[in-house]
């Protein structure tokens, strides 16, 4: 009895003793995690808090309960913005997935001047976001290169960025242009991870190129594919530069995607509470995708 108590006490004490060098471990992670807490975690929590208030940045915030959220529920501008975001996200991510995969497969063939071409194809990723927006705005100018090119095929001049039906497609083209090379690299890495002998074995069995693609490449790239889709969704959901510079959200709000609406609501109309409520909604959307991603990977492993 006494021995058992002593053992329990000793085990308990051992449980409280820190592992060796634990202090150093904490010291190493501390600076980064302090910043992470102050500039990432706290802002998320505070966004939720501010979303329940009316706050113009100058006077003290006043608690208004769920009124920001109920306003969002009926706000046609918010609904239009949500729709614009979804259009942009779907419009960019699905073609990007297909083109990036096809391009990775093509580069995996013995293409001449492969390295040179790959470097060229990669240039959109090397370009930074503001110059991209500025250059494409010029390309989509009514007298710009895009219309000059199309006129050779007899297409009449299009006012790409000021016409309600073409502004969003124009932004989507730029989005695809920028995203494809990036995700091509991820697909190429995925392709290189597939053992060559799988293909050799399939060739010995007389499998055609198409069936090798369907039965080896596609299934083994599933993980990469899902990842690419989720990453493109998150990257395109937060895109703001092109609409901000190329269209300013217009014409008639057709390209006012969610991040742009949040920026305008918060920093042009100083409605921090409402902007925070929008942020929370967007945060939930991102979270939904992240959870979905984690579940998909957990199923696989």
């Amino acid at each position, binding site marked *: 009895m006494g021995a058992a108590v002593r053992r329990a006490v000793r085990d308990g004490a051992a449980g409280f003793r820190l592992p060796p*060098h634990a202090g*150093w*471990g*904490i*010291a190493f992670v501390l*600076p*980064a995690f302090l910043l992470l807490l*102050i*500039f*990432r*975690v*706290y802002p*998320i929590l505070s*966004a939720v808090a501010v979303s329940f208030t009316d706050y113009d940045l100058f006077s003290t915030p006043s608690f208004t309960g769920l009124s920001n959220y109920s306003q969002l529920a009926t706000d046609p501008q918010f609904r239009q913005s949500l729709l614009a975001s979804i259009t942009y996200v779907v419009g960019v991510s699905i073609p990007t997935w297909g*083109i990036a995969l*096809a*391009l990775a497969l*093509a580069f995996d*063939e013995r*293409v001449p001047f492969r390295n040179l*071409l790959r470097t*060229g194809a990669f*240039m959109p990723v*090397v*370009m*930074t*976001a*503001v*110059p991209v927006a*500025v*250059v494409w*705005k*010029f*390309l989509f*100018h009514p007298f710009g290169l895009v219309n*000059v090119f199309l006129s050779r095929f007899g297409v009449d001049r299009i006012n790409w960025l000021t016409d309600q039906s073409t502004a969003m497609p124009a932004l989507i083209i730029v989005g695809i*242009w920028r995203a494809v*090379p990036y995700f091509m690299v991820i697909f190429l890495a*995925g392709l290189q991870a597939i053992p060559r002998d799988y293909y050799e074995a399939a060739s010995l069995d007389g499998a055609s*190129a198409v069936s090798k693609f369907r039965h080896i490449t596609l299934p083994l790239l599933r993980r*990469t594919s899902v*990842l*690419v889709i989720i*990453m493109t969704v*998150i990257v395109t959901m*937060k895109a*703001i530069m092109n609409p901000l*510079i190329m269209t300013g959200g217009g014409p008639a709000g057709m390209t006012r995607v969610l*991040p742009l609406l*949040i*920026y305008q609501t*918060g*920093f042009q109309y100083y409605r921090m509470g409402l*902007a*925070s409520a929008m*942020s929370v909604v967007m*945060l939930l959307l*991102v979270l939904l995708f*992240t959870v979905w*991603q984690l579940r998909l990977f957990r199923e696989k492993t």
Partner: protein
Amino acid sequence: MRGSLRRSWPLPRVSATVFVVLFTAFALVPVAWMLSSSIKSQGEVFQLPIQWLPSRPAWLTYVQALGRYDFGRYIGNSLFVSAAITAMSVVLSSLAGYGLAKYRFPGRNLLFLLVLATMMLPLEVILVPMFLITKQLKWLNTYQGLIVPMAVEAFGIFLMRQYILGIPDTLIEAARIDGASEIAIFYRVILPLCKPVLATLAIFSFRESWDLFMWPLIILTKDDLKTLPLGIALFESAYQTAYNELMAVAAVSLIPVTLLFFLFQRAFIQGIALTGLKE
């Protein structure tokens, strides 16, 4: 002859080549057009038929464009801010990655979960509260306000942790037996082994910070702190029709990242492939 040509150029290879060439052209035309327009006079930019290489290159466009604003200042600010963010982020990520990978302490798993949870978080979503906290710190219109909130990246911590996990513990234990301090172990044993991933992280971090736009846009009002992307946007809204000069400014802003890319192409591409490891 014909037979051998057919054998070395089977249909998949031909179609792959055509597709790759077409896409590369699509990828490069905007870049080429930017460069070509930047050495034209304003009257020439919309002239038809297109002259890709103007007969008399107007190199003065660059001088003229860069003289319109204090671009020297903007470029200096961008270089300083990007270098500071990169240095801080590399140091903080490698320290934290090492701590998470090789030490056991209470709360470690919770911290790692935090890294995973914030890794995919787009900054654009928390711009409003980040602005509010920076305002509380009285860091609006300061260099520290530009740098510190951007200097920690969950993905960097994750990347370093994954990489350092692969370094055998026996190396660390041997150094401990030799009497090395924990800091010396990090500095002399771990960091030299991390060189490739550190290069990747640094390039990635520099590219991201060189590109920062929304953050400086909302926290800066003072002109002498403005970074290059803000300068370009400023130029764009004031001289909308001076396309040749606008393209010159854009081209200049692309130099640092392009240089990094051509110098460290392998690490650059490796970095992107590594983002595919997020899980």
